[in-house]
């Protein structure tokens, strides 16, 4: 009833109270701690590398330069890597959302023979470390001659039970009554899922989207061994490949600029989805 009465949330109404202030104060203080290294990264990215070889503790005084960024942008392959990363990350995100949401719904809200066992087996997959799979997967993809394709970059992560687990848990909190209403409204099981349960779990969807995108975007080991052709590099691998052998001491500014450059798309995506994460769009179900 009170979508607009957010101010009237108990915590809002109490905003004036000391406890609330203290808490907020603490979080703001923590936020300052959090932001310091970030600001530092930003500042370093605007400094000449040669200067940084000797000084990494001077933030706001000159010299400043845009060289690090122009270096990135002038790397001829960067555009292609960016596109690769986008294709892989978006593809992986969309597919994961689809597969995980479907499975999550299946596990959370439907019955079929053997469901519990299948679910438990799927959850056990959570415990499989990525490192246990890299070599076998590489071998399998090599046998199939699939390396250096988008498919090879996208597919392996789809098997992650994380999304399924996440969606299952969130779907369980969607009120059953609303789903019942939809079933009576002649909606097929799939339609119930698609038109009713999915929209009601938007915050969870947004969260999973950001998670998946983030891990796909920053993924390193798999693209490294799977995409050996520079034109198939993702941004992470590509940018790393441009580093000289001693970049960690000689190219700090350049590295920081790379970080900003590579992090920006995720951050933008986050800002875009953030409104779903705390939005009360789905809000509270009406019963």
């Amino acid at each position, binding site marked *: 009833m009170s979508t607009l009465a957010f101010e009237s949330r108990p915590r809002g109404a109490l905003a004036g109270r000391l406890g609330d202030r203290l808490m907020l104060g603490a979080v703001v203080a923590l936020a300052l701690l959090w932001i310091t290294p970030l600001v530092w990264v930003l500042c370093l990215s605007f400094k000449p590398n040669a200067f940084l*070889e000797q000084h990494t503790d001077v933030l706001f005084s000159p010299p400043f330069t845009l060289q690090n960024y122009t270096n990135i942008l002038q790397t001829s392959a960067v555009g292609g890597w960016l596109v690769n990363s986008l294709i892989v990350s978006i593809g992986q995100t969309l597919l994961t959302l689809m597969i995980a949401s479907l499975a999550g719904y299946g596990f959370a809200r439907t019955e079929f023979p053997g469901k519990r066992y299948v679910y438990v087996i799927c959850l056990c997959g959570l415990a499989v470390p990525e490192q246990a799979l890299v070599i076998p997967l*590489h071998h399998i993809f*090599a046998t199939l001659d699939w*390396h*250096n394709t988008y498919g090879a970059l996208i597919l392996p992560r789809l098997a992650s039970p994380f999304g399924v687990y996440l969606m299952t848990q969130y779907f369980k909190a969607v009120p059953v009554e609303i789903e019942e209403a939809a079933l009576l409204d002649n909606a097929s099981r799939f339609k119930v899922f698609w038109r009713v349960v999915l929209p009601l779990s938007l915050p969870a969807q947004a969260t999973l989207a950001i998670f998946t995108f983030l891990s796909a975007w920053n993924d390193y080991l798999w693209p490294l061994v*799977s995409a*050996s052709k520079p034109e198939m590099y993702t941004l992470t691998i590509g940018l790393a490949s441009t580093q*000289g052998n001693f970049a960690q*001491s000689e190219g*700090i500014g350049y590295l920081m600029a790379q970080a900003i450059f590579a992090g920006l798309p995720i951050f933008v995506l986050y800002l875009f989805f953030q409104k779903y994460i705390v939005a009360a769009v789905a809000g509270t179900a009406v019963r």
Partner: protein
Amino acid sequence: RTEITLSRFFGACDAEYGKVNDVSKASGECGIITTLVNQFNATNKEDIVVKPQIIEWSPYYTQLDARILSRDVPTISVMHEAVLGDYVKRNLVEPLDDGFKSVGIDKNDFTPHAHRGVTFGDKTYALPFDTHSWLWHINVNLFKKAGLVDANGKPILPKTPDELLAQAKQFKDKTGLPYFAVPIANESAAQTRTFYTWVYQQNGTLFPNGPTKIDLHTPAATNALTLYDKLMKAGDITPGLDYGAANQAFENGKAGVLMCGTWVIEDFTNLSNKPGSALANGYDVVPFPNLFQKKAVWADGHSWVMLKGGAKDEKTRHAALVFLKFLYDHDGDWARTGHLPARQSVITSAAFSALPHRDAIKEISSTGYALPNTVPRQFAIQQIVGEEISNMLSTGKSVADVQKEAEQRTNALLAR
């Protein structure tokens, strides 16, 4: 039109050198190799195109292995001489003797160190490109302050371990600073290099019982470790530095000597030309001073190999060889990175001697040593040994423990 792929590290620098076709205009590892390739692509007469495939240095071999496994092999790859043996032993590398002959590469011109590095049995498996090694970079300004310079203003260097300890003490007393800066934190290679050097200087060997069994209890090994330990305990090594911090400390005048490689010579030289810096007019670099019986220092080299399956046909193979010849011809240009050339004729050339400090270090091409190339998994051994020595330096682990554990770990590795 023949296309060959060139898999390498050294980074990419399109922004600065993407369009430069003249190697003489470039500097730095990345700049020089990039322009070399550009120049070759622009000038070769056989319509050969070299396509570089660049990868970050640290996972380079992981990716290379993966490529071999998925039969996606580059025509030419860069490879450290230290690991070349592993690939040769698995029969993954093409022998190049015939090819060298066909394009006019003369392996007799290879320096002794380079020759040792690329030859297995009687076959040559790679084109050596350089010798890189481990040096003392010296802040002469601080040495002056410590009273450790001779009449010509040249730094006075120790000749025995005891002299080293004494001079280091003097240095510290006079300047209040530690003698050495060495990367210790998060670093193992540096320790191994220094350690190997001091073992080689004693004519020692680490593999007296064959290539799959290390022995760290030889007197040579014990001496080397003990010296290192003493220096640390005496406060002659700045604690806690990682690679970047060690360089920073040296550049900012926080230590007298930096143990580091050939690849930083150029940077420091530039810095010494900058008034106001701690190194201004006071930088010198020398090979590791001989503290024991003979001049010797750890050295490794970059080389170019043709992995089996990389050249799909004779035409490609030929093109690759043509490119190798081009690299061979331009070995002198590469030497501007600070690395020593792999060709004797270049080392003796006037052009090379004209480069700053090169005269002082060119002896390394003959005093440089490496593990016997029959020893497998040299990087892994370097990692384990270095790690254990780092433990000694950073946590005070005893020499005996280091010897025991490094030996155990290495031998377990080699047994697998």
